[in-house]
Each structure stands twice: as structure tokens, then as C-alpha cells.
């Protein structure tokens, strides 16, 4: 992350002229310019301190509650919750049918209705050999916090928000995912009050695994739809 910040600053110092020159060469342009990201104004951390100080003095916030809540975000919720939903869908075909029909109600079977502090209505999307689903929020950065925890920075960045809807295959390649030409890409722009969870395909080599073992294989990125799970290789034989 530090590396990225430096590169952004360097870019802001030297980049715009270069980018402008490379982007608008003539017709037949196939590459986008490298991109100018924002660098947060240096006063922001101080500004947060000021706000915290005002809110604390006025009794509007309890700093201990801040710590509790952040610990909750960083340790209690996370992709391990969504992974339970995916593993159950792999294990139990009738659960998968109920999940795809009404995910908000199906996850109550796993005792997940009270977990996470966002209970937005949920929709599950099943990947298959024919169609690959990927989720974005172009307008802000809506994300299924209750099931996946904190959204990764790239999900909130302008590059991901702007491009997934227009060139999903190029974006997926930047994640190292190259789809077969005959696979359909289905992009879900979560513009309203529904939150989307991708159910990745069950990886090969996992027959006979227990639900607990399967949970360990499910990644956050596979549930956003920017990753396919690789065939399982037992340790030592990879």
C-alpha cells in the first residue's frame, strides 16, 4: 500500500503531461491513459482528530465505543461468514435452490440473520461453466458488509467502479482471471438496496471434503466475482 501511495505522488508530480501525450495520439487508440488518482490532502488526519475531539467533548461519541466497533469490523465480520454460505450451497443442493430463490431468508438457516450490522436484502448469484458473475457499485461502493466484512480498497477505487461495467474481461484479467471466450460475463451494478454475493463454482478435487474444510477454500475475491477457485491440490503435491 505504501508503494502505491508513492507511485501516485510520483505520478502527480510528473505524470499528467506524459499521460496526456500517450492518450491522445490519434485515432486507433486502444490503451487508456495510466490514470490520475487522488492523493488525500495532507490535512485530513488532523481534521479527523478535530472532529473526534469536538464529538467527544460534546458527549456525542464515546471513544471506547469507537474501539469496540472497529474491532468488530476488523475481527468479527469478514469473508469467513460469506464462506459458510458458499460451502453450504456446495454441500446441499436444496439449500442452494433456496439460496438462489431468496438469499435473505435462506441464510437464516445458518443462523446468520443477526450477524453483521447491515441487514440489507441479499441476492445470491451462482457461477457456472456458462456464466461468470461479478459485482460492482458504480455510484458509491455498496458491498455486502454483513457477509464479507470491510470492502477492499480496490473495490472502492475509481478504476474498478468505472471500468467493470464497460470492460469486465479486461478488469478480470488484471486480477489474473482469464475467462474462456464462450463464457458469458454477467456484471451486477448494485445501484439500489440489494446486496449481491457470488457463489463460485466448487473447485475440482474437493469431493469428500467436509463443510468445515470447504469453508477454508472460499476467498473474498471469489465471492465478489474477480476470482475463480483453483482445483484443490493437497499440500506437498502442488
Amino acid at each position: 500500500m505504501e508503494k502505491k501511495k508513492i507511485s501516485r505522488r510520483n505520478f502527480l508530480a510528473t505524470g499528467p503531461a506524459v499521460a496526456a501525450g500517450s492518450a491522445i495520439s490519434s485515432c486507433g487508440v486502444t490503451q487508456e491513459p495510466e490514470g490520475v488518482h487522488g492523493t488525500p490532502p495532507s490535512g485530513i488526519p488532523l481534521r479527523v482528530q478535530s472532529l473526534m475531539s469536538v464529538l467527544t467533548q460534546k458527549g456525542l461519541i464515546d471513544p471506547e465505543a469507537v474501539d469496540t466497533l472497529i474491532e468488530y469490523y476488523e475481527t468479527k465480520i469478514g469473508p469467513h461468514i460469506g464462506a459458510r454460505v458458499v460451502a453450504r450451497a456446495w454441500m446441499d443442493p436444496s439449500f442452494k435452490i433456496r439460496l438462489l430463490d431468496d438469499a435473505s431468508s435462506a441464510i437464516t438457516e445458518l443462523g446468520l440473520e443477526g450477524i453483521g450490522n447491515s441487514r440489507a436484502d441479499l441476492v445470491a448469484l451462482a457461477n457456472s461453466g456458462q456464466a461468470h458473475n461479478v459485482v460492482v457499485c458504480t455510484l458509491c461502493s455498496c458491498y455486502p458488509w454483513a457477509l464479507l466484512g470491510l470492502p477492499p480498497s480496490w473495490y472502492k477505487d475509481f478504476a474498478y467502479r468505472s471500468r467493470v461495467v464497460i470492460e469486465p474481461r479486461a478488469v478480470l484479467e488484471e486480477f489474473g482471471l482469464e475467462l474462456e471466450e464462450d463464457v458469458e460475463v454477467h456484471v451486477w451494478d448494485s445501484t439500489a438496496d440489494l446486496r449481491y454475493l457470488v457463489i463460485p463454482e466448487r473447485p475440482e478435487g474437493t469431493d469428500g471434503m467436509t463443510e468445515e474444510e470447504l469453508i477454508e477454500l472460499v476467498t473474498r475475491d471469489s465471492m465478489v466475482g474477480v476470482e475463480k477457485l483453483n482445483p484443490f491440490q493437497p499440500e506437498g503435491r502442488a
Partner: protein
Amino acid sequence: MNGIHDMGGMGGFGKVDPQDDEGFHEDWERQVRAIISLVRVGGVDEFRFTIESLPPVDYLSLDYFGRWLLAREKMLVKYGLITEEELKNPEGRLARTAGYQAVTPEQAGTRTSRSKRMQLDVPPRFQVGDRVRVKNEHPRGHTRHPRYVRGHRGQVHIDHGVFPFPDRVAHGLEDKPQHCYAVKFTATELWGSRGNARDIVYLDLFDDYLEAAS
């Protein structure tokens, strides 16, 4: 509003950096996240509109939590919980706000936002499978139908049920409950020759955004 936030389909932002995958980079981001949950004013739709209304240069130069900070400051001032003067001089001795009970540490981990779906018998204007066109409207206020679908034809794919209409709720108006649908668009309908003929884009769109298409 036709704002800078409405960036679906724009170019110029460069490549995605999958390595940049932390939830927080800095401690101040953690604090901003907590302030949003613990000191609630207005609703999420008004919060989004406040973010969208930041000057475009600020929107682009701040990161996600920086935008949250500026927007929440504005709302706290608007709702009278703090003043701009206090923010400028945070070291002054400030009196506690009478009658306000801050969220306790015990309550903090259980703060929930409820589902917004409404159990109301509002008739849907469209059925699954109906051909629809997104109205070519450009409201000045908050809206959730991005520019890149306006005027385009799609097909109703899922009826999600009845929800409050964010275009009104964000501005403190009555919520005009209505159906919200996942609408399916072909990539070529939206993006012409840049779209892959196999690909599909789905968006969740409210009844008021749509009209019947043949």
C-alpha cells in the same frame, strides 16, 4: 445529479490494483468509519447525496473515507449537532450536549441497519420478462439510475419487491414506495461495439425510472 460520482463506463482512471486490498490504510479511516456508525444524522440516501454534492475536484482528490468525512461534517453541522466554529477551534472547552446519550461500547457492536424492503401492497408496473426502457431523465437531485443506462432498452429480470424511493427520501420528501427490479441489459446495447455480444449488465432500477418498450 449528473455528478462526478456517476462514473460507470468512464475512462482515464487507469488499471485496478488488486494488491491494494486492505479495508483501512490509516487509523483516521477507522475513526471515520466508526463516526459514521456511531453518530447518526439523516439517512443513507441523504449521506450519499451529500457525498455526490462535494466539489468534483474534492471528490476525485479524496479517497473513500475522506469523502465520508467531509460529507458527515456537513451533515452534523446541518442537523445542529456541531458548528463550523467548533470544528475550527476544537480545543475550546465545549459543553456536553444536553439530553444526548452517546452509543455505549456495549451497544457499539450491535448497531444494525435494517432491510429497507417494505411489506406494502403496491402494484408493480412491470412483470418479469417485460421489455423496458430507462427514461432519459436528468434529475438535479439524488438518483440511482446512472447515466450509462438512460435511454437504453432492457428486460425486467427480477422483481425485488417494494422499497422507499431514494430520489425522494434523500431530500426529506415522502418515500413514495415502489417496486425495484433487476433489469438486464446486453453489453452491446449499453456500449455499442465496445461491448462483448455475450456479456450482460444488470442494474437495480426503480419503477419510476422505467417506461414500457416494445
